[in-house]
């Protein structure tokens, strides 16, 4: 592999990328980057990391240089193209955007956000979406936190709308799950009788000479205020803030009185429809009509102003009453409140029930409000229709929430997805490996991991690889000891390696693993040896005796190995199965047998063999005879599997569908002897309770 040949130089690649980024930006294409990437050595992932970093450095440069919005957007655009070309990781555009929004002024943010809004389709593509949704959400939230609630209303709204467009319909992250009210939103107004301009002036008035004038205060240019309505009006806001108040008797009385007074005032004070006034004029003077209409529409769309919070000064009250937009807000608040009171909401408590009287009042008042809303210019009818539409949609949302916010997407594909999913969940990694064994390629999700894994696709082979044998051969290990044990060497006993405790420990372990004499000697020597060195010495001489037949030692070694593995048939099973018959062909005869025996259960088998529901129904529609259907299915499966339909897969499928008897009867007729062994093993499997082994059992039987 290329990776091992040359080491990837991150810093150098980043530098090269930075230079080619400059070029690409000028040309507005990623071709330069591509060339640069091709020229570099290293794995794709490493290159990607370098380019990602280069992008971020570039943004930093732009920010420090005080670049304009178009510079940023072109760079982000370039990065999306690079992602599409597979040059950098999909998260990069989002990281860039986050960096930009974190570091530029709000006015620039607004422009850049325009770009984000325009590209919502791009962000929703699955690559970008999966890697970028969290970045985008965090970015938007950061931005929202930064913005002023009263100054940047429109921008805040844009961000919210963007999030709504970006996330799926049933995304719950921004949802008010418990239907809580925004209780902090208190609208304060002049409640106290002592406040306000009137009282503060009284002391001056007392100085006046006139006997009656002591009552009078000079109020300058202040206009008269209808304080009663003023208080009634603003008191309503508290009900809109916390609608549950309406369910208490006294509060409801206040509410209904206030509502009646306010609506009466609104009803009495019809607002003048500037637009329709103009229209009437136009009717009289037919010429210039079209020209005028154009002007009018422009004027209408131009000056839309929105406020985050009501201004409650009594001095403004008069003006507010004659403001059509202001009225609309209030009407809509009424409608929302009534909608809430009428609705079945999961989070309402038992005592939150409307009395008949209340329901009647709500119904009447709602009709009144709707009528008033219709009258309110400009375009009252359309506006009302829009609001009613929105409110009716709100009912759906409410119902959705009452049902615990079920996902909309799931519902659609429930029947199709449910089964394969649950099947997939049942599989452990081991099963996955077994199944994928035939393909010799395992996808572990991440490309890097897959690459690593596929260096040695088979786990067991990898374990058996030569470089993983760490145990030294017995002879090699004991060579020193044997030499020392030779009396000719004339080595003092205390210098012998066998007296070294470390050596002795290793030696005993090695013997336990490798030597056939280990267990024999412990029990067989007479009298039993008491010290480890003594025992070792005895062993060393024993091994030394075998040494002269050096050539024979290897076969013996093998023999011992065989002996141990024979002791453990369970271990041997899968190994041999893998080696000898990974994909033994299924004969035509066997197919017919299976087809004849399987009967109704073929559909279960089909699912196990990886057929989709559609395919099954297709087969069903082909012919009504069950046998024919089964044959057809098996044929299709054969075609799918290619030239060599593996028996083990079929058997595994049969077992999985609970058709073990067929497995036995079809695949084991000729191997009665083996069958006995099989049954025995089955018992053992049950005792051990090991699923993996059970699945690999049939492979062995074929051998």
């Amino acid at each position, binding site marked *: 592999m290329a990776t091992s040949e040359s080491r990837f130089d991150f810093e150098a690649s980043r530098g090269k990328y930075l230079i080619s980024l400059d070029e690409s930006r000028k040309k507005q294409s990623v071709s330069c980057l591509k060339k640069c990437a091709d020229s570099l050595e290293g794995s794709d992932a490493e290159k990607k990391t370098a380019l990602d970093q280069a992008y971020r450095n570039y943004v930093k440069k732009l920010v420090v240089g005080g670049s304009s919005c178009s510079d940023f957007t072109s760079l982000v655009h370039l990065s999306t193209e690079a992602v599409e070309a597979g040059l950098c990781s999909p998260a990069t555009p989002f990281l860039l955007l986050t960096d930009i929004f974190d570091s530029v002024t709000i006015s620039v943010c607004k422009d850049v956000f325009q770009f984000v809004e325009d590209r919502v389709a791009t962000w929703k593509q699955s690559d970008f979406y999966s890697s970028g949704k969290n970045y985008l959400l965090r970015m938007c939230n950061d931005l929202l936190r930064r913005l002023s609630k009263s100054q940047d209303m429109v921008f805040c709204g844009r961000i919210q709308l963007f999030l709504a467009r970006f996330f799926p319909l049933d995304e719950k992250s921004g949802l008010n799950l418990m239907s809580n009210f925004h209780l902090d939103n208190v609208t304060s107004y*002049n409640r106290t009788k002592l406040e306000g301009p009137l009282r503060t002036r009284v002391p001056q008035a007392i100085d006046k000479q006139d006997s009656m004038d002591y009552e009078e205060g000079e*109020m300058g240019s*202040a206009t008269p*205020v*209808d*304080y009663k309505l003023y208080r009634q009006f603003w008191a309503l806001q508290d009900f809109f803030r916390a609608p549950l108040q309406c369910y208490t008797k006294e509060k409801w009385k206040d509410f209904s009185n206030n509502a009646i007074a306010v609506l009466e005032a609104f009803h009495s004070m019809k607002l003048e429809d500037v637009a329709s006034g103009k229209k009437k004029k136009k009717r009289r003077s037919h010429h210039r009509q079209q020209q005028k209409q154009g002007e009018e529409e422009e004027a209408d769309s131009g000056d839309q102003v929105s406020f985050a919070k009501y201004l409650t000064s009594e001095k403004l009250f008069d003006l507010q009453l004659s403001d059509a937009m202001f009225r609309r807000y209030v009407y809509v608040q009424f409608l929302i409140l009534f909608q809430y009171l009428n609705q079945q909401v999961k989070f309402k408590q038992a005592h939150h029930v409307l009395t008949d009287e209340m329901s009647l009042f709500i119904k009447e008042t709602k009709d009144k409000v709707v009528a008033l809303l219709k009258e309110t210019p400009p375009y009252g009818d359309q506006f009302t229709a829009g609001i009613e539409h929105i409110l009716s949609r709100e009912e759906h949302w409410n119902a959705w929430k009452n049902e615990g916010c079920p996902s909309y997407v799931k519902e659609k594909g429930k029947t199709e997805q449910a089964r394969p999913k649950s099947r997939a969940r049942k599989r452990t990694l081991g099963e996955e490996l077994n199944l994928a064994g035939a393909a010799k390629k395992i996808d572990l999700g991440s490309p890097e991991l897959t690459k690593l894994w596929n260096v040695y696709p088979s786990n067991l082979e990898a374990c058996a690889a030569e470089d993983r044998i760490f145990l030294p051969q017995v002879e090699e290990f004991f060579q020193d000891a044997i030499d020392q044990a030779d009396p000719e060497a004339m080595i003092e006993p205390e210098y012998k390696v066998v007296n070294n405790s470390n050596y002795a420990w290793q030696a005993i372990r090695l013997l336990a693993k490798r030597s056939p004499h280990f267990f024999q000697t412990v029990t067989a020597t007479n009298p039993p040896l008491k010290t480890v060195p003594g025992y070792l010495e005895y062993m060393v001489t024993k091994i030394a005796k075998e040494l002269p037949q050096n050539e024979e030692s290897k076969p013996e070694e093998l023999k011992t190995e065989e002996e141990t593995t024979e002791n453990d048939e369970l271990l041997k099973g899968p190994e041999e199965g893998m080696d000898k018959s990974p994909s033994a062909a299924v004969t035509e005869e066997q197919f017919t047998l299976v087809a004849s025996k399987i009967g109704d259960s073929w559909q279960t088998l089909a699912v196990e063999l990886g057929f989709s529901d559609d395919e099954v129904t297709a087969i069903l529609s082909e012919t009504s005879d069950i046998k024919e259907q089964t044959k057809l299915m098996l044929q299709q499966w054969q075609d799918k599997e290619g030239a060599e339909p593996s028996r083990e897969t079929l058997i595994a499928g049969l077992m999985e569908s609970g058709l073990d008897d067929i497995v036995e009867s079809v695949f084991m007729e000729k191997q009665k002897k083996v069958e006995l062994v099989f049954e025995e093993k089955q018992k053992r499997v049950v005792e051990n309770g090991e699923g993996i082994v059970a699945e690999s059992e049939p492979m062995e039987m074929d051998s």
Partner: protein
Amino acid sequence: MAMSYEEQILKEKKQLHMSVFAQCISPDGKYLLAGNNYGTIAVFSMRNALASDANENSRKPIFTFKAFDGAIFALLSTENFLICGGSGDIKAWKWKDIQQKAPRVAWSLSVPHSANFGAVETNGLAYSRQDNTLYSGGGDSELHVWDLESGTCKHSYTDHTDYIHAVALFNTSAQVASGSEDGTVRIWDTRTSGEPVAILEPSKHEECINNPRDKWISCVAVDPADDWLICGGGPSLSLWHLRSLSPTTVFEAPKCQPHVVLYHDDAVISAGTSPNIYHWHVNGDSKLTTPCTAMDVYSVVINTESEANKVLCSSGASSKIDVYTNFGYKAFSLDFC
């Protein structure tokens, strides 16, 4: 002072049948004066009524006084005097005395009347500050011109064939208009004492006629530039161009024969035989129609004297006087009792 039961009943009955025909605002804009059909004048303090802590009591008159035996039809305020027209003489009170709550008739003008009919009532009053002249019109079908300096009647215009409902003074030119039961509006040159300068007859214009028998003109108003005149009564309220003497616009208020009309800013406000106050654009389009308490509205005044108390007050066949802070809706009612 405890009232006897009978007195109580009588008072309540009177209250029930009360009509307030006339209102006026004191020159300082702090008081509203209203005269009813029993000849009583009530003084209301606008400031009290509009205060942030106003209650029922602050919406009752500060005090009342008896001005006439019969009904009061016209009230007018000049710099120093409250002038009151009703059955019989025209009477005046000093503002100072009223403020002291000690009203005394400062002077009175006796309207000449023939022996056959007893006292003549005065329906319309107009005051010209430049030459300190008072114009009054009423039951004798004559428009009298009074010199307030000497308290004498300078002359009388006698062309009307039926009694006069309303008198309106022009703003810049020396002319006065009077609307009468005979169906005409006559415009007089105040410098001469002869024939009217012009005669408008809404009842002869098709677009104004509601019912051919209803000819009377009960209200007249002249626009600030003296180019236009609004009049109405039996015929619909109509806007007349004074140079061409032709009606240009008709203000169509169904089932409402106007009793009172006035210019305010660039709008026209009218009211009459329906419980509504109508606000109009001068082109005849309705701007606002606001409900009020009285079934018949006889008087509408706007307090233009004091910005702080700038309200619209309407009175009529009820003891309640409606106050509109924002002209769009009735804020509260003053109680004439």
